[in-house]
């Protein structure tokens, strides 16, 4: 599929390039913010699994740049982006290349905040989806668990957490687990997220860790409180937890599932704002280039 065709089929892809976002997912955070106002009054933000950096861009443009323009750079909110991958720099965003599951990274984040804790943690991380929904959901749930371990370390009580989930088979289990830490959990589906995609976002607010909660024991806690299935597998408890659903974004605006025509015939398709910085296959690509497409055995 050519670039122009993708421009036509995916309005948000086109708009992202036109507005200079690195990925179309920027609109998702913007639309979530529209509905929940999660960015209001935020002083310290952590962006997990930030690469390629579209959510960091949103945070920078919504939080850091206004403060800069107001001439108060010292008051500007602190934004820290964490990813295993290196990421092209963004103004006002401190980058940490590290593993989100390790306590070391958490301490590093807090040190950037001068000992204070974060008001908001956002995570748009997803595995490279395979199309096998069950597997993708599992890996995504693991990723959220990993994100929660860092959230437990860096989020102040009362803070918010936004993460991507796949609403699949065991979605209810995930919600009930999140409910342990956040009394207020909502599922949001931004308009820019395709209707055909099982992706949605959990917006967890008012972080309230249970008393005597040790962040280090989070993994164990999550494991032990699973009520979905008895280990013997004979009785299953139907977990029905009412998590409110909210579609957000301008409902009369662009529909992510629809093709839109290009503005005119002379429309120039733009290049992606930020190509991948360090993909896992960069060596393979280099070798391919070297051998001009011929197969090579090393």
């Amino acid at each position, binding site marked *: 599929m050519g670039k122009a065709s993708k421009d036509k089929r995916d309005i948000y892809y086109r708009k992202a390039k036109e507005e200079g976002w690195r990925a179309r997912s920027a609109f998702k955070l913007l639309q979530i913010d529209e509905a929940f106002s999660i960015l209001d009054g935020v002083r310290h933000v952590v962006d997990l699994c930030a690469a390629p950096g579209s959510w960091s861009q949103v945070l920078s443009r919504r939080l850091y740049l206004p403060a800069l323009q107001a001439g108060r750079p010292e008051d500007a909110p602190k934004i820290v982006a964490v990813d295993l991958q290196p990421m092209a720099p963004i103004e006002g965003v401190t980058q940490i290349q590290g593993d989100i599951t390790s306590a070391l990274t958490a301490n590093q984040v807090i040190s950037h905040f001068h000992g204070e804790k974060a008001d908001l943690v956002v995570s748009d991380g997803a595995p490279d989806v395979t199309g096998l929904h069950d597997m993708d959901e599992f890996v995504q749930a693991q990723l959220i668990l990993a994100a929660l371990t860092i959230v437990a370390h860096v989020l102040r009580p009362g803070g918010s957490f936004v993460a991507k989930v796949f609403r699949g088979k065991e979605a209810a289990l995930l919600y009930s687990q999140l409910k342990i830490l956040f009394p207020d959990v909502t599922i949001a589906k931004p308009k820019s997220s395709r209707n055909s995609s099982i992706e949605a976002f959990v917006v967890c607010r008012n972080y309230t860790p249970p008393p005597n909660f040790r962040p280090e024991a989070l993994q164990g806690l999550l494991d*032990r409180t699973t009520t979905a299935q008895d280990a013997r597998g004979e009785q299953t408890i139907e977990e029905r937890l009412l998590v409110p659903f909210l579609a957000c974004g301008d*409902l009369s605006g662009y529909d992510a599932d629809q093709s839109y025509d290009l503005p005119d015939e002379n429309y120039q398709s733009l290049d992606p704002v930020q190509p991948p910085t360090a993909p896992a296959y960069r060596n393979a690509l280099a070798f391919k280039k070297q051998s001009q497409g011929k197969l090579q055995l090393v």
Partner: protein
Amino acid sequence: MRLCHGDFTGDVTALWCYYPSTKDENIYIFAGFGSQIYAYNISDGNKTHSRAIVFEDGARVHGIHGTGGPWGPLLAVHGGRNAKVFLFRSTLYRLKGHDGSVHRVSWAPHGRILASASDDRTVRVWALPDEAPNANDKPVTLVAMRILYGHEARVWDVRFWGGLVISASEDCTCRIWKGPQMEMLTLQHTTAPLASAGQLTTGQQKPRGSKGDWVRSMALDSHDVLYVGTNAGRLQRVHLPHADRGEEHWEDLWDNGRAEPLVCVAVTRHAGPDTSVQEDGGVLASQTLVDPSEGVEDAWLAEASSPLGVRILRLDVDMDQQLLVCGDRTGNVLAFHFDAACLHSPGSHAKMPLIVVLKHAHQSLPVSLVSISPEGSVATASHEGNIQHYIFTPPASTSSTDRTLRSIFDRNEFPGISEVDALLLVNVERVSALTVIDSEDELPGPSGREDRVLSGFQADDWILYSMTHRCELARVRCGGWRRQYACHITSPTTFTFVYYRDRKIHVQRRRQPPAKLNGAGGYRDGASPSGVSSLHMLHHGREIQCVALIPAPEGQMPVAVITGGEDGTIQRLLYTSTQGLHASAEIGEHAAGTAVKSISVVPIGPGACVMISGGAKEVLMAWQLSWRGRAASSAQDTHSQANGQALALEHRWLSTRPPPKGGLRPRSNAPGCNSKGSEHRYMAVVGFAKEGSADVISIIAASWEQVSSLCYHAAPVLSLAHASIPSTSCQLVFSGATDGAVAVWNCGNNVSGVDEQQPVLTIPGLHQSGVNAMSAECLESSEEACRVLLATGGDDQALCLAIFRVTWLCAASIPAVVVLASVTVPNAHSSALRGVWTDGHLVASVGLDQRLRTWTALLKAAHDCSSDAAESASSLGVTAPSCSSARLHGSAVETHAVASAQPSTVKIITQGRHVEVTPALKSYVEEKLGKVVVKYEAAIKEVDVRLSASGGDASKGPKKQKTEITIYTIRNGVVRAEDVEESMYASIDLVCDKVARKLRKMKEKAIARGKWAGPGGPRGGETIGQSLPSEAEDLVDKLPTDQEAAAFPEVVRTKTFVLEPMSLEDALEQVEQVGHPFFVFRDRSSKQVRVLYKRKTRGYGVIVPQLDD
């Protein structure tokens, strides 16, 4: 046998069984849970287990592959980016180097070398050092010995096979690696040939004869006997040499003496070893029988001449049916009556009467295959890669449904010939692997069952293809179908293929070898399967998009389950209670392989229906499905079981809506006007039959005439539902779009001409997000009015029910439709709903969370539906608590399924915080609380029990055991009670008593107010969707979410907004503008927050907060 582990909950992510070579060793099963490996010793009776942590960093174990070794099982384990070699309990080696996730590790058979496949598009080969590892040492970090670059996407799997490394990747390739270094690596192993299924021998034969003569046609009689017809009209027989002995042996059989080319040679098995040579010159098809043993017997038997004047390429004769079918160069199929008597009267030169002409049955492409099966069905194929199956039916025996269909799909092109329909097209089969289909045979396959084998060409290759297993069996590079060739196939793995190239005859043979495969990955002697067998078939391979169920007539058992998938195929299964799902078959493939998005089934007669399938890119196809087999009559009840099994579902393709001009690509609109109607990624289909006749109308009319276009929605339409109202011609169609809007259309009356319809009623924003599924059912109807229940399921996890009233006033053709009541269940599933079905009382829904839930719609017994005034009393409710949930196993099912009604009891959900909910505790709660709530069952939606503990040993303070019970009722709010005791059981007892008291009080109050839903109260549900004015246009704006009454109070949205200082007048203006019932603002003069609200009677009220000093 079951291996379980008491204190662990979680998924097993990897499994491997260690099966030792000697008897005295133990058999182990290794299972990966989280970042640990559990080893189960299953040799001893106790099934002991031990565990070890593999990945200290918490990465999950994704795969285990082990090998036996001198020190016991040596495991290679991977997870995340890590891979390790592991002797149980101690890590020996770390495999370092992959840049991405590792998807597979695999050992070479001798256990010294392993390979790994990863996201970074490489396969790495690792060799263990020679010296014996010491388990007590620190793990050694290994670096890959070879890095195999070449895959263009992530590599999923890697295996060793003999001296080869085979890798499979997402770039849809399998690569086999065998470099010089790789050979060095695996030198000590015998290299098993990869394709050892057969032997190919190649020979070259020169045609003898005069100079300038050349082979014009060939035919194989057996694997060793070849007949060759030359351009100079000579027929020769060649005995082909065997692989091990002899020269070829040529003999001249016959010369036609006229030096006319022998265009076609065929061998028939009719009445002894005759060879019939068919010679066609231009328009003639004549036959000459040659007996090779006695020389020429006769030449001219009968003549069949085509009225079309096009060269005939293929023909087949069936003596029993006295039928001769032939296909010509421009895709026409002709059938002649072949009088068997002419065989016994040589020299008669009888003219064969033409009975069928199917003009351009194969577009204008040459026909490459004509065959008449012993059962009488005719198959033809051409260079387009389709096989068309026909049934030859004498005109008298056509059934009524056939006649109906024929009148719809009119094929009356040759009015001069009376029985045009004697060859009735049954099915078109698309063979994607071949473009030119040459032969089709049922051959005994490896498992003893028949294997359907096709041969044909694709580009320059001759291909043997198994239709049963959907795989290629052999491929010979021969230069394509334009060269002379002949093949003789006796089993899927035994064939001889000859072709003429460069003035030589090349022979390719494959014979089934005695299977001897040993060692790595091979089969043990004696157990080797011969030929191919497919392990996994008739599987969509992609997401299933739609499902339809077709029960057998008269309530007999087999139910056909028809599924359409993203892969563009429609497949079916039969279901019986005894056999489960079985008899899978592919019904067909959508045009251009586009995804099937929607299926609609319209019954047209007893045991017959038309199925319409719609897919991406505007593809619409119609199929006929009919049950065949003896119907069980009352006299045969004892044999009904046998009869039920004899029922089979037949399918035939009927029609395809011609693709839009410019191909199947999405059209691009003129610049400027935006894409209404140009969006073809989604397609929803609904079909229905006209009242009183078997005509299938509207969207599947004969030439796929578009009857009307429903243009209201700005967003793509995701779902359609249809309700047909008895005794009228009204056909209501409901449509739902991605923006959550639902529209109602009347599609009954207009049958001709494309007109742009306007909806009868629109409901924007019924759902917050896309409307994924709908189902509608007519509840009751009279002459003038009826009520229709619509159930919709949305992407926003909500289920919505609405009742519509349809009235016809003064014989107006357009009915008036109004919403009587609607109710929304906000969180019907914990994920998006994908299927909804209703029969007017029961509602079933399935969601992406893979649960099936059944609901009961509580309809208040309505008054006579024709009376207008009483109508407002009609009401609707949903019994959420009587929803029974069933886990759906397997992948996500999106279905309009027929669900059985399951009366359910109240679900009690028990959760523990800092307390382990033991089975004993759980059953105690359920028993104790169950007794209390069972009396109020009808009014309770959900019961939540939370057990928690603090103090005592776990933390400071005295020991406290707390039980909280929260009961959500349908419309009496929430009942809550809690109690803290030292013993958990005591606290449960006390809190149950408290709850019982509160529930009783609640019931008394509710009965007093007339709000009790259960026994003792007024029947039916309470009016939730309040009586609405009957003007449809008023409803349009009012129906959205404000109308939904939450079953219990809950905050569904929190909104923050800036309070602008304004005057009271400004605020009044604002509230009128936004249309909300209330408005919060800051008073300009006093700087205080005020609330402006709309009073029930008239005017507005202002609330002024008074602050305490």
